[in-house]
Structure formats: C-alpha cells, structure tokens
C-alpha cells in the first residue's frame, strides 16, 4: 500500500515541474532526432535497396490522380464508369430474377387457391409481402452485386485516399477538417458507418460538421433507387444507344451535387453555429496495393450486398404487410392509405412529388431501401394491379400514376438530400450524445431537400407555363 501513497505521486509531479523549468521544450527535438538517427542506423545495417523504379512509378500515378487539373475529371470519370458498368450489367440479371419471382408468385397463388385460403390472406402474404420482397431482390440485388465489388476494388487499390487528398483542400476552405473527405467517402457505403468514422476527427467542432453533413452522399440503400430511376427516366430521354451513358452521367452529377451541398452546408455551419478555424493534419498517401480479389468479393458480396439486402428485406416485409392493410382497410369510402396520401398531397405537390411518394419517404425512415417498393405498392394497391416484371413496367406504372421526368428528378433529389435513416439518426444520437444535434441532423437535410425540390419544381412550372 505504501507505494500507492499519494504523497509519492506529488513528488513525481514536483520532479516533472522542476524538469520543465530547467529544460522546457529544449530537449524534445533532440529526443525525437535521436530516435530517428537510431532507426536510420539500424535500417542501414539491415536493408539493401536495389532500384527505385517502382517507387517512381507510384509517384507518377499519384501525380496524375491528384493533379490540379486532371484530378477531378479523372475522379468523375472513374465514378461514371463504375455507374455505367453497374447499369449495363444489371439489366439482364434483373430481368431473369424478376421472371423467376413472378413465375413463383403464380405458383404460390395456385397453391393458395387450391388450399381454399381466404382472399385477404393471399392479399397480405402474396400481394403485400411477397411482391415487395420480389421487387427489392430483383431490382436491388444485381446493381448492388456489381456496384459494391467495383467500389471495393477502388478502395482496395488505394484510390480512395487519393480522392480524399483531392477533396481535402475544398473541405479546409469550407472551414471543415480535411479528414471529412474520408468520412464522407465512408458515407457512400453507409451513412451510419460514415458517422462512426467521424471519430477520426479530433476537434469536436469539426467532427460535428462531418456528422451533420454525412447524409448528403447517397449510401448503399439509396444508390439502387437512384440507379433505377435514372435508368428509366433519364436514360429514357435519349435513344437507347446512349441511355446508359446518359443515366450514369446523371448519377455522377447527382453525386457531385451531393458533395457540393456537403461543402456548402459545412461552410455555413462553420460560419454560424460551429464557428472556428480548421485544424491541420497530414494525409498520408498509402502505396498502391494489388487488390485482393477474393477478399473484395467476400467483403462486397457478403458484408455489403447481403447486409443491405437483408436489411431491406427485413424492413420491407413488415412494411409490405402494413401497406397492404392500409390500402385495404377503408374509412368512409377511401382506404387509410388514400386518406394519408390525400393529407400529404397538397404539400407534396409544391415540391414536385405526390402524396404517396412523400408518405413512402416517411414510412421509409427505418431504411431508405424500401422507399421505391412502398411507392410501387401504394400505386398497385390503389387499383392499377399489374405485374411488375421489369424496369419498363415500373416506368409504365409510374407514368400511369402521373409521373413525369420532373417527378423522377425531384424524387432523386429528395432521396439524395432528405433526412437520414433511423439507423443513422440513432448512431448520431449515440456519437454526439445530444438530442439537439440529432434533431438538427434530421432537420437540416430535410429543409434543404424541401427547398431544392421546391426550386426545381417551381422553375419547371414557370418555364412550362410560359
């Protein structure tokens, strides 16, 4: 016990103080230098270098990828190529999966009829739950199975730190921390993960900025929505030969827009609520690595694709059930679903959406993945009962329900900018430990989404009426 005597600790403190007055910082540099010299001496004895060729090669690539002029174009080009491969590659398997699911749906329906089960049971289980699941799997799985491995490949090659390097300057200009470019990149995978990644930012002020703005890059849950809508509505604007290119270009633009909003909001925050000077840090560019193909496939297929899909399915199945009930239980002469959407409709029109879409975004709070499935289900439950076998038929369904290019554009913008999903909000609450910032992290994006959609919708209306 004697050696834990607090007086001994006081002695230690006094030694520390006297050493401080004696030397100050005088010897700090010397200590560091000595260690470096020692390390150098050891290295000399144990390491022999043959050539510098490979190093120079790495440096040349770095100069190109992070160059002032070409850095950004290369970045957007790569992103565009990734989207293009995803859209092109996903069409065919989507079709096959959809066919398979609806073939199975027919069989299941026969089974229900043979068993003489009540009509509502078939409605809830097949038309409600099964169809939503089928849609989620057939439309979301193929793009994810292509997009995630490609994205992980870029990550594994060591490209993402270069992206961070390119964006670093912009973030500093916005009054935020350079590391925010990294946490933002994480957000492309999952905003909740991005928010957790903000721990790498030491300053609380800059960490909050990063947390509050992480939502402005589309996560895995929202990419499938954006890809599907861009493919049918934006790609559909031009002849089929160019449609995929135009669609991928458009998604790239959306991402750039999201990054721009991130920077603008960061700048505004750092000038108002979260004032301060950005702290500096050194971003080290790791060497390029040969990608580990097996690990990439494992990570992107199991960890990401199955995870996202699993979450979508887990949330979509009960949501499908709820929606079916809402659509089939009537109050007065209208279903509950119609009542709700009628209530939201006037406001939704102002921002270029409709009542069903806005409701889908609200019901989709637990997981962004299910927003489009909910929209589809609401429309189908409304009476337009058609089988959804492909993107083309999804488009027909949407158009039949009054969608235009403008509607699709606003849905995509709203999806990009609106409140984060429940998981992310919960993570923000845990990370910041503050209800105020959690509420703000939902309000700020939602306000921006509403304003942007309002501007787009009004501009289009003005132009249209002229």
């Amino acid at each position, binding site marked *: 016990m004697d050696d834990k005597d607090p007086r001994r*600790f006081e002695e230690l403190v006094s030694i520390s103080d006297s050493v401080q007055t004696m030397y100050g910082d005088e010897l700090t540099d010397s200590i560091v230098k000595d*260690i470096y010299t020692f390390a150098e001496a*050891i290295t000399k004895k*144990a390491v022999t270098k043959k050539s*510098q060729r490979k190093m120079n090669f790495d440096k040349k690539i770095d100069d190109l990828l992070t160059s002032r002029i070409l850095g950004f174009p290369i970045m957007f080009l790569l992103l565009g190529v990734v989207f293009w491969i995803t859209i092109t590659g996903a069409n065919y398997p989507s079709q096959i999966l959809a066919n398979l699911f609806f073939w199975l749906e027919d069989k299941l329906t026969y089974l229900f009829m043979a068993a003489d089960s009540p009509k509502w049971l078939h409605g809830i289980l097949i038309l409600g739950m099964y169809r939503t699941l089928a849609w989620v799997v057939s439309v979301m799985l193929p793009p994810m199975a292509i997009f995630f491995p490609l994205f992980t490949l870029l990550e594994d090659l060591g490209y993402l730190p270069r992206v961070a390097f390119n964006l670093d300057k912009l973030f500093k200009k916005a009054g935020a921390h350079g590391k925010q470019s990294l946490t933002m990149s994480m957000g492309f995978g999952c905003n909740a993960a991005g928010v957790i990644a903000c721990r790498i930012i*030491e300053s609380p002020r800059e960490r909050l900025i990063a947390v509050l703005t992480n939502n402005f890059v589309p996560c895995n849950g929202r990419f499938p929505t954006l890809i599907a809508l861009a493919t049918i509505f934006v790609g559909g604007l031009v002849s089929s030969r160019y449609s995929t290119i135009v669609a991928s270009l458009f998604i790239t633009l959306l991402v750039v827009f999201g990054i721009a909003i991130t920077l603008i909001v960061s700048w505004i925050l750092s000038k108002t609520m979260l004032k301060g000077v950005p702290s500096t840090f050194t971003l080290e560019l790791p060497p390029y690595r040969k990608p580990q193909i097996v690990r990439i496939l494992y990570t992107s297929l199991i960890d990401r694709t199955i995870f996202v899909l699993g979450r979508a399915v887990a949330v979509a199945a009960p949501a499908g059930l709820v929606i079916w009930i809402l659509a089939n239980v009537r109050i007065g002469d209208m279903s509950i679903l119609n009542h709700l959407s009628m209530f939201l409709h006037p406001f939704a029109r102002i921002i270029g959406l409709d009542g069903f879409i806005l409701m889908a975004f609200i019901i989709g709070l637990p997981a962004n993945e299910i927003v489009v499935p909910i929209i589809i289900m609401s429309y189908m439950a409304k009476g337009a009962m058609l089988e959804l076998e492909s993107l083309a038929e999804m488009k027909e369904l949407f158009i039949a329900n009054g969608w235009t290019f403008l509607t699709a554009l606003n849905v995509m913008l709203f999806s990009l900018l609106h409140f984060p999903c429940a998981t992310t909000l919960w993570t923000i609450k845990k990370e910041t430990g503050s209800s105020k910032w959690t509420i703000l992290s939902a309000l700020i994006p939602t306000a921006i989404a509403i304003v942007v959609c309002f501007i787009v919708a009004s501009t289009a209306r003005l132009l249209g009426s002229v």
Partner: protein
Amino acid sequence: MGLTCDSCGKGILKKKFNIKCGEEFVVALAGNPNVGKSTVFNELTGLKQHTGNWPGKTVVNARGNYEFNKKKFILMDLPGTYSLFANSVEEQVARDFICFGRPDATIVVVDGTCLERNLNLALQVMEITNNVVVCVNLMDEAERKGIFIDIKALEEELGVPVVATVARKGQGLDELRKRVFNIALGVENPKPKKMTYSKTVEEAIEKIQPQIHKILKGKLDSRWVALRLIDGDKTIIDSIHEYIYDDKILEIQGEEVLVNGR
C-alpha cells in the same frame, strides 16, 4: 523491468481495460497506420473484419482470441499510430495500454517498404517493454520494390524477435504465433537494445532517474518515465495518476462501503 509485477499488471488490465484474463495471455498489436495491422489481426484471430486502406481506420480497440499450442491468447488491436509521444488520443491509448496494461507480449507491425520510418514506433515500444515481437509485414511489396530486408541482422540490431510476414497471404503468421508464444511463456526473454540519447539528454536522465525509481519502485521503467518528463509530456503524469494511484482511492471507497454496511 517491465514485468516485475505481473499480477498487478493483470489487475489493471481487468479494471481499466475491461479484460478478464485467467488462463489467457494478453497480446497487444501496435503499428503505424496502413501497414496491414488489421490484416494481421484478422489473420491471427480469424475475424473477417473489413480492412480499409486509409489512415485512421482503427479508432476503437478491436479484440480477438486465438489459440496456439493449447494456450489461449487475447489479441488487442491498438490504434494505428506513428509514435507513442501521446500527441493524439490514439497515441495515448496505445501507449497507456502497453505501459499500464502490461500485455504478455506486444507485436509491432512495421511496413517492409518503409522500414526506417516504421522503426521509430518499434523503438519506442521497446523502451517501455522488453516483450516485443517486430512483425515486418508487406514483405512481398518490399521485394517488388527492390528492397531486401535481412531479418537476422535486424533481429540482432534490435535485440527482439523479428518475423517477416505477408499477412494478406497468411505467410509467416505461424512463425509470428510461435515467437509470441515463446515470449508470453518466457521461453524467449528478449533484451532490446536500449537507445542511447545525445549527451545532454542522457545527463538529464541521470539526474532524475534515481528519484523516479524510488517513487515507482519498478512499476514502470524509470528511465522511460524520466525521458517522458524531460520531453515535457504532461499526459504521462495524468496516466500514472489514473492507472496507478487511482487504485488506492477505489480501494478506500470500497472499504468505507464495507464499514457502513456493518
């Protein structure tokens, strides 16, 4: 020196780092960011955690288990740091774990392609504890870059076991497990080459080291603590207070509760 008081080291592990260890040996995993530390961690423990390729990936300490030669090991993944000077929270966490947690062995993963820069951390860890294994990772990349590392010579220069690995291909990990096993069980007792500093620094150390030794009584390496004080590092004082002296306060409180209970 570092392990003269094994039992209280484990006590601190349990109390402050929330690690229960009965039969298990505790192994810390240190290293610079981006040297494949997480890959080594995953390969040793069999966890399929995703390993990222950018700085600052490991913020929270990850923990895993593995078995070797019928002995159980707990592996603590420390934050990736360039030094142990406690410039950042990560550095302080890593330092405190090695210093006060007293793991049975500490693996320092270094990047074979830039050994010189990475050795700084290894040398600093070796100042705190003798039980160090240096794991030179990314040997394949080093080779491709025309860098040849004489592992034997390095081992001699450092005075601790050195193992060459290509973690992502699983190469050299069995040897790493073996050397960790040897150190944890005392089969190997490394004698790290202690750094000699420039004259003024050494003189300053000489002045205060005896007093510090009297106070700490071998709980920590007194030379190292002296160096930290000369360095002007205030965090070490705080940490010593938290990890060593706070125990006393806790114990007193515990006794009081007992007395009142009667």
